[in-house]
């Protein structure tokens, strides 16, 4: 119980901190050019890493050979490219994943 409480407090503070950082440090001075450069290219980098991390622990050598995660992931991306509706993409991908892990 105390641990749950501590975790919520820490995650709350850290999340707020990440959102407040620019306002704390750069409300008067302009961010240095290098930071401005990083802020443009860090988001694609982080999202690539997070997608990679979601797949890195999957066993591709044992049944079902990672097929559910791979197929559902491709479907999510295609749905999003096609419809560009966050809800449709996530619900569709997750539903297909939930079905595949039960039937394969």
């Amino acid at each position, binding site marked *: 119980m105390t641990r749950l409480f501590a*975790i*919520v407090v*820490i*995650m709350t503070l850290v999340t707020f901190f990440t959102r407040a950082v620019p306002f704390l440090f750069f409300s008067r001075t302009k961010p240095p050019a290098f930071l401005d450069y990083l802020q443009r290219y860090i988001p694609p*980098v982080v999202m690539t890493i997070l*997608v*990679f*991390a979601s797949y890195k622990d999957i066993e591709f050598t044992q049944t079902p050979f990672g097929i559910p995660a791979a197929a559902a992931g491709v479907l999510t991306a295609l749905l*999003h490219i096609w419809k560009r509706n966050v809800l449709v993409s996530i619900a569709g991908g997750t539903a297909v994943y939930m079905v595949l892990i039960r039937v394969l």
Partner: protein
Amino acid sequence: MESSRSGKRRVVLAAAFKASIPVLLGYTTLGLAFGFTLVAAGLPWWMSPVMAIFIYAGAAQFMGIGLITGGAGLFEIALLTLLLNGRHAVYGLSMLEQFKSAGKWKPYLIFGLTDETYGLLTTVKPPAHVEQARFYAAVTALNQSYWVLGCTVGSLLGSALAFDARGMDFALTALFIVLLVEQVRAVQRFEPYVAAFAACILALFIAAPRDFLLVALLFATGLLSLLRPRLDGRKPAPASTQGPQGGGEAQ
């Protein structure tokens, strides 16, 4: 309450609600998935609304379930939250100007700067004669109410129904994929993706599994620094598509 004031409030709320409908659909659904996953992992149902109200970060909350049940240390939890939500600092950088005159709303606007709220605030315009900060605050508060609603109903349903939620945590992977597709639309250069992929492969061999995210991000940032002459040499043309990202870049 003065009638003109409450009338104006209605105008602001109506405009904010209309703008936030896509998030209403997305947040209630993803919140439901979160609530189900949380209860299925053995956590008490009320942790879902508590996390939605205070932490208010979808990806971090999903990750939090795994960290709580996996017995992660507090420092590790802080570090991973920092890494996962670091992208939000980037959003703030491009909202510095817009939030400058937000006054009393500013702390809440900053607190509520999620992926989707950022996307909305950079694309929608407040109605005429409405103070921008009030409109922003209304959009942010509505978005959070959708998230809290979804998370609460999800965990209540999850504890009431005998529902096999196995695999519902794929919603987090799907969310990352969606965000990546959005990035590919906004940043149409191949180098950052290749650099990140290379950093992941390196981290896979070098880092302990629990340090993977941190090490991969460090390598990738290093590679990005090396790529600066190449990427910055030509000013990146704003993506030609009307994406939700990149619209608010302060120049």
